[in-house]
């Protein structure tokens, strides 16, 4: 009775394409360079990031949420947006596990966005060094950001 949990197909292809098209419309508006091929590569990277974080995705991932959160960041270069998404996606799943699932997807992305656009000044290295306890404190409003 073999059945691998990773066989779970989170989103049908048509739904995924619809999500990607919406993201592409948005990124076009901000002059950011993103393509379907890039999305496919990001999708493959998502699977690796999930595996590295020991997680199972069942809802289609957070790629679109990350696009919405970071497309208007003043620290994003048009050519570097896809690269940023690669790293943000990986960081998201790492943080999700490090915070012991205490934060919802929405809360975590909001904190990451506020830190990245604020005190991190667009530095992913800085963001990746933020302790998980602090992420939770910020998300729960126990610590205010400048």
């Amino acid at each position, binding site marked *: *009775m*073999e*059945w691998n*949990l990773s*066989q*779970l*197909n*989170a989103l049908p292809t048509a739904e995924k394409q619809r999500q990607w098209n919406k993201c592409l419309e948005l990124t076009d508006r901000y002059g950011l360079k993103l393509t379907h091929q890039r999305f496919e590569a990001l999708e493959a990277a998502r699977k690796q990031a*999930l595996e590295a974080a*020991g*997680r*199972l*995705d*069942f*809802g*289609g*991932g*957070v790629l679109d949420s990350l696009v919405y959160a970071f497309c208007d960041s003043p620290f994003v270069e048009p050519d570097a947006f896809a690269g940023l998404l690669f790293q943000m996606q990986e960081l998201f*799943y790492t943080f*999700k*596990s490090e915070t012991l*699932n205490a934060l*919802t*997807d*929405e809360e975590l992305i909001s904190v990451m966005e506020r830190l990245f656009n604020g005190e991190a000044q667009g530095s992913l290295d800085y963001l990746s060094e933020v302790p998980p306890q602090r992420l939770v404190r910020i998300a729960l409003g126990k610590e205010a950001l400048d």
Partner: protein
Amino acid sequence: MDALSLPPAQWQEVLSRVGPLFQDCLRRYTLGDSTSLPVEAAQQVFSALCFALRQVPQLLSGDLFVAYRQGQALLREKVVECRLSGATRC
């Protein structure tokens, strides 16, 4: 024949149909707040799902969502029976 006595090949057939039900269980487990969870937690949810399904006879022919609800109801009934019998002894 109850679900417990299904041969492995037939269990495989049940499992191949279980994806949407499993997704639904995971969604409810995370209260809709997360699109992912630790693999260990997913495995526990999956074990619980299988345990509920095993209570139901004629698993192969019916809708798995309905079978799952029937399995849950049977398990709840057993839990209540156990509690009541425990309470009577005390």
